[in-house]
């Protein structure tokens, strides 16, 4: 592929800048922080999924030896929530609990054991309320209303959009496919349990060290929750021991230890148990989907109508955003002239769902890619060919007003097809073995922040001093993906030094410029662009000083190998540090800032802020499976993946992100599920997690993980730093549908839901043997009172990106792609 310019650092495999610390035990995670006079917190959690709190008696706990402080909901009058429209929970419950595990009280004591003893002495009287276990129950029982602020009954929110006349287009289609899919919820399962330490510093201000992916959002939210000026709060995001979206909320315990520290004037630590992490959740929403898709007889899409029903759990968390994402990205892979999306999120009495890797886009992609496989099968077209014939062109707008820039999807598909020997092997393998293909796309950062503002999404400061030191500051957060490594690489590339010579200071709201955090795959693109701008500004100072010193024109000055030199005359050369000396003499102390704001969303209708991104990454995956028809057991011997990364910053890390995504995707496809059961009524009727342990919540071990053949496709994107797109989330999306499609190729049954477990395979095989439809999946999509859709004409139908009042008919349907 095009590589264009030569790089010193970008694209070369390297030890990551924080690699040594990670292999020596030096990396300081939140639970590794210990401070003098530190106390420990434990939370009392609700045993009921839905109940009124009648009374809380803390008197026995308060006299327990070694106890320092008891807190309850009375101490926390301000509601919290990560997005402005979702401020619906309290750090400790006030008046009502809505899921098993909701924090009700906290004890701070000299050690964890004492705190746990005192927690047991707190007496809470509850009055149990009827409970809602699923979206279906929520719709059927609007009177058992979990929140007053919901749109109606237990419908938290609905979203609806129509881009062009979908019904008319479906009516004109040669075929219309209607399918139901269900995506079970699952959780992040980062190996690090959440931990936080809050401490009052010498000036009486608060510092919070925490396992968080979003220190800036926590900083803002904490100021509000505590009623303390943000300038008096410093949030330090410790390197996360895995995040995957699970450390993106303002968590109850973060507010509790902060409040306790301010009350006591001493450091307070909490580290959640694994079971508590399962109950805190904020993971993948269970989603029921209905897809109606029209195609021509030669396999071109004419229209799609997608309906989603999300089970949100007990609180908002990121839910309204997840709901929008459940319909946002269906259009960025294949030409889709007409598109209608209706989404609904319900409240249920279970731990809240939120963001997990691929946030909200994973579930509908699962449905879309399986349905395409069914379409290809019905039309007798190779599923890879079907996809290749309808890929969105580069530099175009989609029906729902997303701007696609570079798109390397065709090359991704061709690569996995070639390398898996797809054409020779699909449909031709021995009984029980099969291949499946699927693709996906993901954002390189969300176009809008989670609270409305028009300021930059990322800021970077670079300081140089006469010692030759390059120090770079950014609020971005290391969660394992290599955030610091990208930062160092960008600055090193511009200044011609080694990444290992760049000191990164990150994720600290007290000293680093704002970066919105490690979510939505935004760090490489947004932080990277800001870093390049900052580095180029400081480079300009070095150029001016070096040109003067070397008596050459500034355009002649180049950087590389720790030197600043004249391109045409290598004898005219300064060591990097010498150049700094001259520049510091000429300009004074050397530093510069850079910032990045993504392009404004192309659409102007309400909700058009969810989906836009500076660029989209693309991935294609072929999965091979072996299905044992006796036991239903599924083995995956190999996966082929090609990911359109734009440009690779560090191939070692990029490959790790791809393979980690394949790993997590296989877990979601085959075994992972966050599921609950009702305890018998005579016990408590509680909705409890079925498997809240690392042993029983199944994830792939080293013995289960197949070989992965990874290829990075480089098609540099002009909006991205040196062309580099995201790689942390996109490669997950195609895995689950590719597994389902491979199962069909292997044994001829359709499993239209995840996880695809042996019992479902056996059930489908039994149906097949009986001559019935060999399918396991949802049978029914309930009637949902979606709101009236917002009508927006697609770009090629004369639309201008605004909502139209009319039904969106009659406009010029001649399709002309608007090319940017």
């Amino acid at each position: 592929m095009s590589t264009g310019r030569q790089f010193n650092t970008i694209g070369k495999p390297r030890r990551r800048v924080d690699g040594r610390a990670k292999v020596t035990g030096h990396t300081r995670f939140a639970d590794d922080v210990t401070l003098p006079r530190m106390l420990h917190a434990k939370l009392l959690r609700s045993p009921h999924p839905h109940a009124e709190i009648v009374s809380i008696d803390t008197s026995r706990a308060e006299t327990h030896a070694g106890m320092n402080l008891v807190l309850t909901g009375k101490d926390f009058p301000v509601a919290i929530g990560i997005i402005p429209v979702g401020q619906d929970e309290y750090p400790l419950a006030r008046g009502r609990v809505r899921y098993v595990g909701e924090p009700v009280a906290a004890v701070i004591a000299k050690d964890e054991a004492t705190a746990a003893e005192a927690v047991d002495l707190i007496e809470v009287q509850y009055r149990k309320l009827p409970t809602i276990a699923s979206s279906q129950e929520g719709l059927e029982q609007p009177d058992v209303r979990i929140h007053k602020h919901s749109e109606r009954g237990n419908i938290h929110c609905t979203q609806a959009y129509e881009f062009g006349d979908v019904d008319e287009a479906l009516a004109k289609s040669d075929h219309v496919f209607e399918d139901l899919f269900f995506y079970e919820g699952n959780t992040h399962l980062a190996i690090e349990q959440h931990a936080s330490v809050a401490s009052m510093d010498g000036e009486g201000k608060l510092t919070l060290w925490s396992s968080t992916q979003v220190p800036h959002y926590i900083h803002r939210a904490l100021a509000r929750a505590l009623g303390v000026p943000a300038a008096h709060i410093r949030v330090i995001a410790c390197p996360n021991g895995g995040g995957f979206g699970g450390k993106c909320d303002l968590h109850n315990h973060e507010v509790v230890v902060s409040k306790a520290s301010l009350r006591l004037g001493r450091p307070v630590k909490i580290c959640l148990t694994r079971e508590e992490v399962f109950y805190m959740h904020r993971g993948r929403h269970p989603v029921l989907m209905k897809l109606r898709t029209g195609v021509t007889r030669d396999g071109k899409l004419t229209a799609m109508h997608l309906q989603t029903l999300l089970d949100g759990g007990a609180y908002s968390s990121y839910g309204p955003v997840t709901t929008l994402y459940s319909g946002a990205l269906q259009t960025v892979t294949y030409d889709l002239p007409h598109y209608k999306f209706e989404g609904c999120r319900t409240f249920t009495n279970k731990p809240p769902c939120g963001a997990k890797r691929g946030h909200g886009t994973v579930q509908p992609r699962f449905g879309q890619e399986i349905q395409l496989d069914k379409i290809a099968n019905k039309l007798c077209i190779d599923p890879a060919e079907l996809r290749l014939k309808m890929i969105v062109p580069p530099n175009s707008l989609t029906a729902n007003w997303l701007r696609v820039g570079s798109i390397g999807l065709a090359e991704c598909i061709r690569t996995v097809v070639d390398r898996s020997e797809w054409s020779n092997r699909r449909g031709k393998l021995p009984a029980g073995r099969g291949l499946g293909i699927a693709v996906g796309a993901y954002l390189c950062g969300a176009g809008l922040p989670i609270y409305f503002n028009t300021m930059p999404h990322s800021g970077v400061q670079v300081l140089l001093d006469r010692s030759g030191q390059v120090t770079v500051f950014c609020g971005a957060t290391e969660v394992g993906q290599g955030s610091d490594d990208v930062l160092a690489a960008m600055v090193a590339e511009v200044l011609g030094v080694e990444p290992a010579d760049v000191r990164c200071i990150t994720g600290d709201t007290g000293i680093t410029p704002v970066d919105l955090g490690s979510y939505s795959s935004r760090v490489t693109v947004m932080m990277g662009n800001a870093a390049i701008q900052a580095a180029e500004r400081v480079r300009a100072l070095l150029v001016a000083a070096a040109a003067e010193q070397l008596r050459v024109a500034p355009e002649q000055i180049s950087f590389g190998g720790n030197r600043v030199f004249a391109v045409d005359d290598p004898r005219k050369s300064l060591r990097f540090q010498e150049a700094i000396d001259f520049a510091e003499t000429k300009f004074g102390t050397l530093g510069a800032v850079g910032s990045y704001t993504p392009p404004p969303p192309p659409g102007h209708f309400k909700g058009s802020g969810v989906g836009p991104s500076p660029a989209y990454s693309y991935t294609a995956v072929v999965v091979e499976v072996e299905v044992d028809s006796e036991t239903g057991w599924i083995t995956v011997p190999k996966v082929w993946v090609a990911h359109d990364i734009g440009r690779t910053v560090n191939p070692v890390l990029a490959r790790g992100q791809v393979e980690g995504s394949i790993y997590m995707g296989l877990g979601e496809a085959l075994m992972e599920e966050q599921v609950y059961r009702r305890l018998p009524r005579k016990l408590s009727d509680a909705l409890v997690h079925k498997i809240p342990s690392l042993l029983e919540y199944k994830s792939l071990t080293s013995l289960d993980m197949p070989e992965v053949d990874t290829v990075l496709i480089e098609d540099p994107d002009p909006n991205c730093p040196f062309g580099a797109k995201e790689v942390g989330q996109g490669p997950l999306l195609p895995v689950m549908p590719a597994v389902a499609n491979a199962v069909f190729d292997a044994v001829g049954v359709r499993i239209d839901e995840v996880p695809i477990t042996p019992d479902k395979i056996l059930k489908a095989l039994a149906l097949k043997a009986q001559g019935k439809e060999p399918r396991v999946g949802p049978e029914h999509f309930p009637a949902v009172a979606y709101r009236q859709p917002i009508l927006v004409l697609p770009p090629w139908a004369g639309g201008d990106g605004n909502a139209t009042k009319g039904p969106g008919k009659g406009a010029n349907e001649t399709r002309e792609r608007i090319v940017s």
Partner: protein
Amino acid sequence: MIEVTIPEAAAKRNVRLRLRVNDDEHEVLFAPYKTLLEVLREDLNLTGTKHGCELGECGACAVLVDGKPLLSCLELALECEGCRIATVEGLSRGPELHPLQAAFADLGGAQCGYCTPAILMTAKALLQDEPNPSREHIKAALAGNLCRCTGYQQIYEAIEKAAALMREARPMRHEVKQ
């Protein structure tokens, strides 16, 4: 399995013990119910050893006790008196990284780095027993260490590279059985 029954009053009284960790002798005063994991992290400030469940399920707390990988969250520190305990902090020789550490850092064996110390120690024990392990042997040795980031492949490659370097450096070493 030793069954330890301690009366409640006695359980609250601290015990004084000598522990040998990374060839350093420590005299430690700790509550007798504490696990080796807790004593390492909380009383010896050796926080390189991690925890992900404290129930023996994730493998993040593995250390070597007398050369064998052991889940430190399931072991009472009391039972480790007189044993040789090795943690990630003792893996490098002075400033020089152990070949496993260098290979993990260079080849993407560590992403978030949280499961890494335990995997390094487990791999060290593997290479002591088998200096030239097959891929299948490595997989089996790591089956009790969960990693959520890497998908394991770069971990295998790092172990294989380190094993090769160690065989080159010390060709006779594998004949000495621990």
